[in-house]
C-alpha cells in the first residue's frame, strides 16, 4: 500500500465499535502505543550497547496492530505470535520490567532469561509466547482455537504471523484445520510488506489480493489500515464477534454431504485478517535496509500511527496536547525504569540452567520455580 491521508473520522458516518470507546479507553490505547514506541527506543539503545544479545526485532511503526487488535479482545482470549513480540507483550499488559529483563537475560525476566527477545510469555495474561521459527506458531494458535472449542468456552484465539510466514507449510495446514473444524481462531497477518528484505510481491503469490489465501479455505477475510489503531480495533471487534462460539460441524457424525462450503466463510467461524502495517526499523537490529528507499520509509512516517491517534483525540476534544505530552513522558519514564530494573537484576544463575527442562524431572534436571512474572504482582499499565 502507499501512504494516504485517510483519518479515523472518515469512517464515522456509520456507527462503529470505536464510537463506544470511552475517553479513558482511547487514552489507554494511546498510552500503550507510546509505551511500545518508547520501550523499543530504549531496547535499541541497549542492543547497541551490547546489553541485549541475540536477534532483536523492533516493533516501531506497527504499534497500532497489537494495540488495536488486543483492545478488541477479552482479557482471557489467548494470543500467540512470532518473534517481533515486545509490542504484544506490552499491549497484553506484561509489565515492561519483565519484558526488558528478559532481553537482558536476567532471572527477573518473564522467562527467567531462558527465552530472550523472541520468546515473551505471560501465562496470567494468556500470552502463549513469541515464537522464533517463522510460521511455527500457526499450528500452536490452531491448538488454542481447538482447545477453546473442545472446552466449549466462548473465547477466541488470535494467532499473529508476519507476511514471511505466508509461505510456510504450517500456515496452510493450520488454515485448513481451522476451516474444516470451524475453530474459533483468527489468523492475523501483520503485513509489513517485507519478509526480512524480500518484498512481499517477490515471495508471495497473489500478493496483490491476499483474500485469495482465505478464500482457498472458505474462510472469512478482512483487511484494515494497520497504521490506524481505530480501524484495527473496529475490524477486530467485528471479526472477533464473528469468531466467538464457532462450532465444529464434525461433532455431528455422518453429514459429510451436507457440509456447505462458502468462499466467504462461516459465521461464527475462523477468519484471516490482513493488517496492512509498516515497520520503521530494519527486520532485526542487524539489518542495513538496502532493499528499500529512505523515501518509502519517510512516506510511512508521515502517517505515524501514534500521531494519527493523537490528532484524532485532539480534534475530537477527547484529549489535549498537554495530556498527550504527559502520557508520552510517562511512557519514557516507565521505559527508563524498565532499563534500570533490568540492569539491577541478577543474571540468570547457573543453578537455573537445569530447571524447567522437565516438569517431572530426572537425573541432572531440577524442578523449576515459577518466574517472578507469575509470583509477583504484575500490574502493568
Amino acid at each position, binding site marked *: 500500500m502507499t501512504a494516504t491521508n485517510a483519518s479515523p473520522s472518515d469512517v464515522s458516518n456509520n456507527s462503529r465499535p470505536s464510537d463506544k470507546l470511552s475517553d479513558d479507553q482511547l487514552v489507554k490505547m494511546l498510552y500503550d502505543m507510546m509505551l511500545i514506541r518508547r520501550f523499543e527506543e530504549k531496547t535499541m539503545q541497549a542492543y547497541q550497547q551490547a546489553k541485549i544479545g541475540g536477534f532483536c526485532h523492533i516493533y516501531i511503526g506497527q504499534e497500532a496492530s497489537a494495540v488495536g487488535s488486543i483492545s478488541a479482545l477479552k482479557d482471557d482470549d*489467548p494470543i*500467540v505470535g512470532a518473534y517481533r513480540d515486545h509490542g504484544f507483550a506490552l499491549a497484553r499488559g506484561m509489565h515492561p520490567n519483565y519484558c526488558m529483563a528478559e532481553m537482558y537475560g536476567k532471572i527477573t*525476566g*518473564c*522467562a*527467567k*532469561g*531462558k*527465552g530472550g527477545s523472541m*520468546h515473551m*510469555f*505471560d*501465562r496470567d495474561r494468556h500470552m*502463549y*509466547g513469541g*515464537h522464533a*521459527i517463522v510460521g*511455527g506458531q*500457526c*499450528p*500452536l*494458535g*490452531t*491448538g*488454542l482455537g*481447538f*482447545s*477453546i472449542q*473442545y*472446552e466449549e468456552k466462548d473465547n477466541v484465539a488470535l494467532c499473529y504471523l508476519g507476511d514471511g510466514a505466508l509461505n510456510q*507449510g*504450517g500456515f496452510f*495446514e*493450520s488454515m*485448513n*484445520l481451522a476451516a*474444516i473444524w470451524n475453530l474459533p481462531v483468527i489468523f492475523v497477518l501483520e503485513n509489513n510488506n517485507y519478509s526480512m528484505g524480500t518484498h512481499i510481491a517477490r515471495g508471495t503469490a497473489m500478493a496483490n489480493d491476499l483474500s485469495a489465501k482465505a478464500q482457498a479455505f472458505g474462510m472469512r477475510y478482512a483487511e484494515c489500515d494497520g497504521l490506524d489503531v481505530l480501524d484495527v480495533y473496529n475490524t477486530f471487534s467485528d471479526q472477533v464477534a464473528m469468531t466467538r462460539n464457532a462450532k*465444529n460441524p*464434525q*461433532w*455431528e*457424525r455422518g453429514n459429510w454431504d451436507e457440509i456447505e462450503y462458502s468462499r466467504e466463510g462461516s459465521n461464527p467461524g475462523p477468519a484471516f485478517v490482513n493488517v496492512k502495517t509498516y515497520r520503521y526499523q530494519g527486520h532485526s537490529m542487524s539489518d542495513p535496509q538496502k532493499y528499500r528507499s529512505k523515501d518509502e520509509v519517510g512516506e510511512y512516517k508521515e502517517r505515524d500511527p501514534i500521531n494519527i491517534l493523537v490528532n484524532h483525540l485532539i480534534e475530537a476534544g477527547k484529549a489535549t496536547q498537554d495530556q498527550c505530552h504527559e502520557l508520552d513522558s510517562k511512557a519514557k519514564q516507565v521505559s527508563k525504569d524498565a532499563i534500570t530494573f533490568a540492569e539491577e537484576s541478577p543474571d540468570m544463575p547457573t543453578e537455573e540452567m537445569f*530447571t*524447567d*527442562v*522437565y*516438569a*517431572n524431572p*530426572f*537425573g541432572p534436571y531440577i524442578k*523449576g*520455580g*515459577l*518466574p517472578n*512474572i*507469575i509470583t509477583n504482582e504484575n500490574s502493568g499499565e
Partner: protein
Amino acid sequence: MVSTNGRTLQYREALREAMEEEMRIDERIFLMGEEVGEYNGAYKVSQGMLEEFGPRRIVDSPISETGFGGLGVGAAMYGLRPIIEFMSWSFCLVAADQIINNAPKMLYMSGGQFGCPAVFRGNNGAGGQLGSTHSWVVESLFSHVPGLKLAVPSTPRDAKGLLKAGIRDPDPFFNLESERMLGMGLHGDKDYSRYQHANKWAPPENDKDFIIELCKADIKKPGTDCTIVTDGRPVHFALEAAEALEEEGIDVEVVDVRTYRPLDIETIAGSVRRTGYAVVVDQSWPFASVGAEVASQIYEHCFDDLDNQVLRVHNDDIPAPYSRQREQDMLPNAKKIVDAVRSVTYNA
C-alpha cells in the same frame, strides 16, 4: 496363544486399553490422528474408541502432520492432554519443528510457564517391505533432545504400562510402537513364551492404575554369561538368540531398556557387572545411535567389570531395502546377535 494367568491381549489392544482407561478418568485427553475415528484406526489400535468417546475426543485429522502435531503442542500448552497418533513415525519428519523444536523446549523457553503434556505415538521401524522412507527408526534421532521422554515398549504389558505412565506424565512423551508387534499375542506368535511367562506378557486385568514407571529397565530373561541390552522389537530378536545360545551352553541376560529418555543405566550396569560381557542391540543405524550411547555409558560405569569390549548390533548402515529377504538381513536379527555374543564371550 500367549497368556498370562489366562489373559490374552494383543499389543494393539494393550495400547487401546491404556488410552481408554485414561480417557475415562481424564476429560482433558483426546486422541487425534489420521484415520483414528471413522476408519477405526489404520492399524486398528483405536478400534471402537469413536463409538465410546465421540468425535469431539476421537478426532480424524487430515494428512497434515505439521498442522495436527503442532495443534497438539498448542492444546497441551492450553491445558489439554492430547494424544497425537502418527500412522508411522516415518511420517512425523515433516512435523519435526513442532515435535522436537516446540514441544520439548516450551517449558524451558517460557521459564516454566507453559509445559507440553502431550503424547506422540505411532509405529516405528521396518514395517515389512515398505521401502526406506517408510521404515524410519526414530529413537536415536529423538532421544538426542532434552525436554522429551521416549519409550520403546516390547510387549503388550509394557505397551500399556508405559503409555499410561506417559499419558499421566507432564512432559512430552514419545511412544515408539511397532507395526510388526501390534498383532503379537493373537496368533500364537513365536514369542519365546518360556521366557515371557510369569506376568511378563500381558498387563494385569482390571487394574486401572497399572503403570510402568518411566526409567525402569526390565530384565526380560535372566542369565549369567553375557548381557544383551536392547529395546522394542529387537527384544524378541534377542530372546530368539537366547534360545539358540542356550543350546551352545551360553546363558544370556536380556535387559529391555524400555525408555531411552530417561535411561535406567543402573539396571543395565548392574547386569553387566554380574555377567562381565555386554552386547548392545538396537534397530537404528550405527552412527550416533542409542546403542552407541548405551555402549558408551556401559564403558563409563563398568570399565573395570568388563572382560571384553562391548559389541553393538544395529540395522545395517543402508536405507531399508524393499526385498523381503534383504530387509530381514539388514535388521539386528537373531543371527547377528548370536554372532556378537559368541564373539564377545570367546574368552569366557
